[in-house]
């Protein structure tokens, strides 16, 4: 299998290098392409044309398939994670941007921003099975690791909608700070972290009662509050620390996920957008939208160790072990 892959890759760099090393996949919104990065070597391996305006990206639980929302093609493409050949498309609805894959990998939930809908897709059948009416401009979307909740955040309605994954209906709504962007559950499914771009805050909600536990604000000397616009948020498995991309503040905030104190602010690249952990959680990868690069943060030392030019408008990021 690996041999065949090597032959099929025109350059074959993957074969020369460390085959076992993890790969980082970054969607490049303006290049209509996918960047493949070897984060250990700190190198861009190759860039593959993928479709018009790729943004949201997810990888299947078995790491065999990549799902990529190619917004201007109005579809989510299924890409073989080894050969990078397109093997199918999912009926995402118009202009898909963000979507979430459930833990089992058999459902994809798509935010349809223009229509105030969430579309539920049966991955195996490649069919839309339900549309759920949500608030205006749904964007951030995620499924809890225990598969109990599907959460959709509406940017203009300023709400997170708690949707029961069994019935695909809204059970509860929580008002959050203006223009919520990303939603992320802790590994134990007990907390939902919500970033709000216009308020410059992150809200931590209790998944059991959907109530607010804590609002986290950020202060960076030399940068006015307007520029602090949180987007991507991830929390480590042990819930020791959370990391928040601060958008045009060009920084990632390190938060103590127990005390909710902001411990450190790390300078990365311009308009940092989305974040992903390495499988061993030793590194954090960031996509820096307007400086056309990604940053690697070493989490033991909490320092930015490398910036890698990847292409124009890097958007989403996933990691394959």
């Amino acid at each position: 299998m690996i041999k065949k892959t090597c032959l099929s890759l025109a350059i074959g760099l993957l074969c020369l290098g460390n085959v076992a090393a993890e790969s980082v996949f970054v969607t490049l919104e303006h290049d209509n392409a996918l960047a493949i990065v070897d984060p250990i070597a700190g190198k861009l391996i190759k860039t593959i044309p993928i479709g018009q305006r790729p943004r949201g990206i997810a990888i299947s639980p078995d790491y065999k398939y990549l799902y990529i929302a190619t917004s201007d093609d109005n579809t989510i493409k299924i890409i073989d994670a080894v050969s990078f050949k397109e093997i199918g498309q999912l009926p995402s609805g118009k202009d898909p941007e963000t979507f979430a894959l459930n833990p089992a990998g058999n459902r994809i939930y798509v935010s349809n921003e223009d229509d105030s809908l969430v579309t539920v897709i049966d991955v195996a059948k490649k069919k839309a099975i339900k549309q759920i009416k949500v608030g205006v401009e749904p964007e951030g979307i995620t499924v809890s690791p225990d598969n109990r909740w599907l959460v959709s955040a509406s940017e203009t309605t300023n709400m997170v909608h708690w949707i029961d994954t069994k019935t695909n209906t809204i059970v509860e709504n929580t008002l959050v700070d203006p223009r919520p962007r990303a939603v992320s559950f802790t590994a134990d499914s007990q907390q939902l972290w919500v970033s709000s771009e216009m308020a410059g805050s992150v809200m931590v909600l209790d998944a059991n009662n959907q109530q607010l536990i804590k609002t986290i604000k950020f202060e960076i000397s030399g940068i006015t509050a307007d520029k602090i616009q949180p987007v991507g948020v991830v929390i480590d498995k042990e819930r020791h620390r959370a990391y928040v991309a601060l958008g045009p503040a060009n920084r990632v905030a390190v938060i103590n996920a127990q005390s909710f104190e902001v411990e450190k602010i790390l300078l990365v690249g311009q308009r940092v957008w989305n974040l992903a952990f390495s499988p061993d959680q030793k590194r954090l990868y960031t996509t820096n939208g307007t400086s056309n690069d990604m940053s690697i943060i070493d989490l033991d030392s909490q320092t930015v160790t490398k910036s890698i030019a990847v292409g124009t408008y890097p958007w989403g990021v996933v990691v394959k072990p």
Partner: protein
Amino acid sequence: MMRSTNRLLILISFLYLLLISTLHPAYAKAKLSINIAYLSLEQKILPQMSNLDAFVIDKGLKGAELGIADNNTTGEFTGQQFNLVKFIVPLEGSVVDTFNKDIANKFQYVIVNLNAEQLNTLADLPAAKNSLLFDVATLDDALRNEQCRSNVLHLLPNRAMRADALAQYMLKKRWSKWFLVIGTSPEDRLYAEALKRSAKRFGMKIVTEKTWQHTYDARKTTQSDIAVFTQVDDYDVLVVADEHSEFGEYLDYRTWLARPVIGTQGLIASAWHKTHEQWGAIQIQNRFKDKAGRWMEEQDYGAYLATRALGEAATRSLSSEIKLIKAYLLSPAFALNGYTGAPLSFRSWDGQLRMPVLLAAPRSLVAVAPIEGFLHPKTELDTLGYDQAESHCQWTPQ
């Protein structure tokens, strides 16, 4: 006419409630209604230089309607219902009469799409004492200074904000020697005053200032007129103040020296523009076009922001009470998304919405002010227009 609108509205509200109660049983119980009036005058069709742009009859109204629709989607989940009733006064009618008769006792929140004089006449009416007026049309610096009123909030950038945005961009480009060309209308002179203020503020030099007094018939004489008119001492950029677009469009490509045109034509400063797509703007551009069948104009954007600001305040304060709403709107907690990359809020000293200003060419967005590098201790947005220390507005508390 008005009655049938009302009746239709009641019917729609009823059907809507019925729909919601089936969709969201948890929220059907306590509906809180917020009623908003939209007040405008019938539009007079002005003589235009160009027939390229269709005359838009309902600038402002469509934006308010979109804002109400967005608010009511949120309202489905919060149990709030926003109702908009429009009052379009005929050309020969009186806005004061309409306000006193149809609005004053029924609506506390009024979106006003009228000129400066009419706006302040309304604001000073005894019947408006307990109203909150959302001005979605005026650009007047005076209304944000000596002529300010404590029951008025301004949703569009005033001339000083626009001029500062242009000046920041010109400073960045090092176009520091200006040739200022001014039209003959009072509005043109006000725009020119704002430009002069900005020139001083940002250390720019107006090398020549001229008033355009020639004919407005482009087909006959402009070609030679402009070449002659623009034979002045060397300058970097022609800055034009022609708010009614009577001659400004014809300056570009016809000047004696090859120089860019900026101001009310050429590169313009605006709260909104059809070329703007960043920060999710494409979403609202699409939503608006689907609804109105045309591009969103500035007054639409202002009216959209007015209804959304009210929606935000009502949702956050869980109230329709004017004191609470107004307090929330003017508090530091208020942050509104305007699809321009920075949270919008109201300046507590003059009621002006703190907002970025787009700098746009006819078919491309050139820059968004505040331009990077113009710093401010509190918010870069306050590098545009009258900052607190410069303001001559003295609000009388109500």
